[in-house]
């Protein structure tokens, strides 16, 4: 566990020691900033114009007005490219520089290598999206008011957050990895359960939050984008394990990523309700966001697709590394 944690730390820190992480984060924030501005424009619009689900603009699912549609196409065109940038260096760079053999001969299992690299890149990806949480108060018309009513559920939320902080400390100070994991998972569970109960069951809250716009689509959108991101990252990781060149890895992961983006374009050709449309919907990630996640609907189909492809790709990456060891 300690080795895995060390590897995660190393991989995660690598994003911030080289330019690639900053370039990715900068480009990503410019893109999402542009989309947020489009959404903001529609939320403060005059006259009979606007957007019912602001997250549709943020995640490229809006069809009206036309420039929101164009921005959506841009977003989903760049999305696999951004995930490709994040993953392209992970194994390909090690292969290119010859450090992979050293890593594979180290007392660490192949699956631990893969998991560590995946967790690191997913952590970076999550960090990128965490930066966009700054938009949420506007996207949900959120107003906070200090009430100071502490309840047991509020305490549960506080303890959960505290556990998460401890887990972070354990992680960064290289304390017991299992303890960090336990604290992290317990803290996350407590925070989610406590927060949910505090805001749904308690009549008075510590901080009273009121959202003028339905906030649930924001939660479902972030859930979707995390799972979809995991799938694209796993694909990128798999591709990265096949080749030596980072550029080739990026191009291949972009190509494979587009296999899950382009089917969404086909929906224009098929009659909604037809079997072909159902297939296009199933494989088209942008369509999942346009129809479901950004509107506050969770469909099991995309979730199964994301999780299964992620697991399969991670498994194949492990096999790919094993095959290399066998050569």
């Amino acid at each position, binding site marked *: 566990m300690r080795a895995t944690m060390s590897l995660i730390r190393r991989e995660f820190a690598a994003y911030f020691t080289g330019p690639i992480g*900053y370039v990715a*984060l900068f480009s990503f*924030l410019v893109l999402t900033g542009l989309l947020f501005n489009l959404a903001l424009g529609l939320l403060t619009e005059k*006259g009979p114009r606007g*957007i019912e689900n602001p997250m549709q603009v943020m995640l490229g699912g809006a069809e009206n007005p036309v420039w929101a549609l164009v921005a959506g196409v841009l977003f989903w065109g760049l999305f696999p490219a951004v995930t490709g940038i994040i993953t392209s260096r992970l194994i390909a760079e090690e292969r290119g520089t010859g450090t992979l053999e050293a890593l594979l001969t180290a007392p660490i299992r192949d699956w631990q290598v893969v998991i560590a690299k995946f967790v690191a890149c997913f952590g970076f990806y999550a960090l990128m999206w965490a930066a966009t949480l700054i938009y949420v108060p506007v996207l949900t018309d959120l107003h906070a008011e200090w009430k100071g009513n502490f309840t047991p559920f509020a305490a549960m939320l506080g303890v959960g957050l505290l556990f998460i902080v401890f887990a972070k400390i354990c992680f960064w100070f290289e304390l017991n990895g299992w303890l960090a994991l336990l604290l992290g998972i317990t803290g996350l569970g407590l925070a989610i359960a406590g927060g949910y109960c505090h805001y749904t069951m308690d009549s008075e809250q510590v901080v009273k939050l009121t959202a003028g*716009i339905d906030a649930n689509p924001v939660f479902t959108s972030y859930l979707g984008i995390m799972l979809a991101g995991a799938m694209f990252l796993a694909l990128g990781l798999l591709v990265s394990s096949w080749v030596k060149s980072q550029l080739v890895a990026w191009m291949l992961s972009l190509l494979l990523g587009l296999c899950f983006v382009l089917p969404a374009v086909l929906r224009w050709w098929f009659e909604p309700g037809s079997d072909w449309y159902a297939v296009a919907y199933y494989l088209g990630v942008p369509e999942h966001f346009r129809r*479901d996640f950004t509107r506050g609907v969770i469909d099991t189909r995309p979730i199964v*697709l994301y999780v*299964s492809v992620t697991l399969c790709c991670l498994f194949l990456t492990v096999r790919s590394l094993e095959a290399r060891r066998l050569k």
Partner: protein
Amino acid sequence: MADTRQRTTWGNRFRFLARALGLLGLLAAISGVVLLWAQFRSADFFTPERLRAAVEGANGQYVQVAAYLAGIGGAAVLLIILIEMLSSLVTGVGRRTAAGTVATIGAVAAVVLLVFVNLISFTHYKRVDCTRDKRFTLPPELAAEFGKLRASAPTTIVVHQTHNFGPLMSTRDSFTKATEAEVTTKVRDLVELFREFGPQFKVVVLDTEAFEYRKDLEELTKDAPELLAAIKAAPENSIFFHANKRVQRLAFNEFMQLDKTASEEADGGRANLVLVPQGIDRFAQRVLTVQERRPKVAVCVVHELLTTAGDDPRNRYTLAGVRKSLTTQGFDVVDVVLKKNWNNARSLSDLKPAADTREESKLERLEGDLDDADALVTSVRAEVRQFEVIRGFVDKVKDRPWEERKAFYQQFVRGTLTEAKEPELLAMLASRLKRAREKLEEAAKAKQEAEKNLAEVMQDERALQDRRMSNVSTKLTKQLADVDLLIIVRHTTEDAMKGPGIEAGLHALSKEQVKVAKEFMKQGKPVLACLGPITPQVASQPGESPEDFDKRLVTEFAGASDDFERMLTERGVELGSTVILFEGETKAITRGGQFGNTQSEVPPLLIAEPPTDSGLQPNPVAAAFRLTGRTAVLESDSDRLANDAAAKRKFEIRLRAIRPVSLAPNWQAKQPFAAEIAFTSADSWNTFQPYPQMGRTVRIPTYTPTDINDPKKGTRDEERKGPFPIAVAVENKVPATWVNEDYERQEATAALLTPYDSTFAMGLTVGASKLERPTQRMVVFGNGNMFTAPKLDPPEEKLLLHSVNWLTNREDRLPRAATEKTPEWHYPRVAMSDRDRILWQGGTLFGLPLLVAALGLFVMLLRRIR
């Protein structure tokens, strides 16, 4: 230098060849499929039978080549896959590659598992609606109802976009445009929900602006002419529900209604789009009731000209607009003509009660036309004969002396005759003979035409059969047996300034007709009555006292009112005998404008506001009309300013010559909602003498309030200033006397005994309350021509439809106001000052990325120092 690890063996060569062949086969197969797709653009083509036919050249050389490419390429790919699998099997069993094989099998198994899991997920899935207001979830009770619908009787839901929101939003502006886009999205969302219920729902979206619209429409309706007819008749964006040859329609507006007033005022005047959801149940109801019978409406009038048939623009009495509007809304409309013998009538008493269909009435009219033509031919023929006889005599005497001829001519010519004038006389005789012959020819043609028309109508067996039924009561009962709503229209005075119009007595029903109408109401069936003023033209004579005038007036009124009106009075409806005028009307006469080209403007009707202090609920028809008024976009604001004529198209109803109609207070107490639908404005007044006299003596109607000592003071006939109620909606139990004949006698007895003992009267009241009496609905308007038009204007049409829908218990079709449960929809907005907005924009578009860039540069610089 060659790589010694890779020896070129025959096996390697074969593997290379096989793989190259497989790759080529794959390319060929893809090319073939693309070529076939380009030709047929349908996945249906890819069936073994069709492909076989294509290979055999049944679809031409192009398809044959494409099919060969696809077939041979596919076969090559399959062959190579088989070879590879066999090869892997052979290699895999060797010890050297066992580990690699296990890894490969593991990878293949993972991919197979991935495909399997996703196939299961594709068909077995669940959607969870996490939205705050559960926007994407059907209410459980509706979902249960839909679940029961059989897949064997599929329902086709057609979303038909015409990009037109009907007469209410005839002018497209930014609000209607946005409404259309949003409602279309919402309809499609709902349709998606319906798709989840399985194959019993087939959903088709048709857009008239789509390229292949006509083709798609033809394909959809090739076995469903009734659906095609409904689609063609629909005036606006609509959703159709089709099952078992029956069609129901729902306009987009009935699903979500634009509140233009609220839209304009929203967000502190910044405007938004405000839509009022009309409920998913309304949509669902159409699906569930798609096979229900269409409600039937009977329109009763006294003459064929007043019926709903025909839309001759010259016929200003037609109710064709009523038929059009009701038919479009899913009603069947029949006409009943209540009077006959129009051809021979010389006075009102000559008219006979009837219960004719329009066809019968037409038959009667055509027979009359034929009789007239026949009589004309006979008379003209006699005239011709007479002239011919004269000419014969003239021929005989032409050679006689002048004196003799003169004596002959003097028999039929007056004045002095001279021989010089004889040719002129003869020419005149010849001319008159010629004219008479021409007239005969014309009359004969007219007769032939009348015979032809009659023969055509006689082909309708039904009209002849109905005619055989001579008993009016039985016939009317039969006509109304399957009718769901009775509409009685009495078109009398259109404009009091132009005189009394059609005499009210013409509309009076006979006793047996009233009895049938009463029986109809006793079944709880609704009635809509549009009763024009019955005020006769009676002018006070010089020196006549008010009492004498009133006596004369009462005599004149006796013929105008009938038992039908008295029956309404038994239900609490108070029908005024006066006519309501507006101040401008009489002023226009004094200015001379009334008889010129321009007519004076009258103020619009005031639709009843929801009662505030009486505890009564709002009138359902008035409430619906007010809500609809908030939607109407009849002209753009700029047009209104630029063009005065356009201003007339506001969502208002302007009527002249209206009769006060109200509900008696004791009857009002029996119903939960306010009875009044509409009022006249305050600058109106009523009078018994509304018609101006422009003869030798000029008399302009003037407002004269009823004297304080007049017995009419305080009654419904009091002459006073407005506002006046002019329409009521009534819902109460039919009177006890209608269902129990003894009750009337007992009531009279109770009235006699009440001064001595009120117990009997009380017992009678209790008894009446226990009598089983149906609740019946009525709407009465004090105007007979408000729905008279070949095509109704939007305000009149909506008032009619709301009244009819309410009367026939189709409240689900009345517009609904937003409630706490179904709040109004609008685009979400974030209140933010311009400064805050600019800060957010700059901060997110430049600030945050620049912060990251600066951090990155800082790290780079730091690393360089190290």
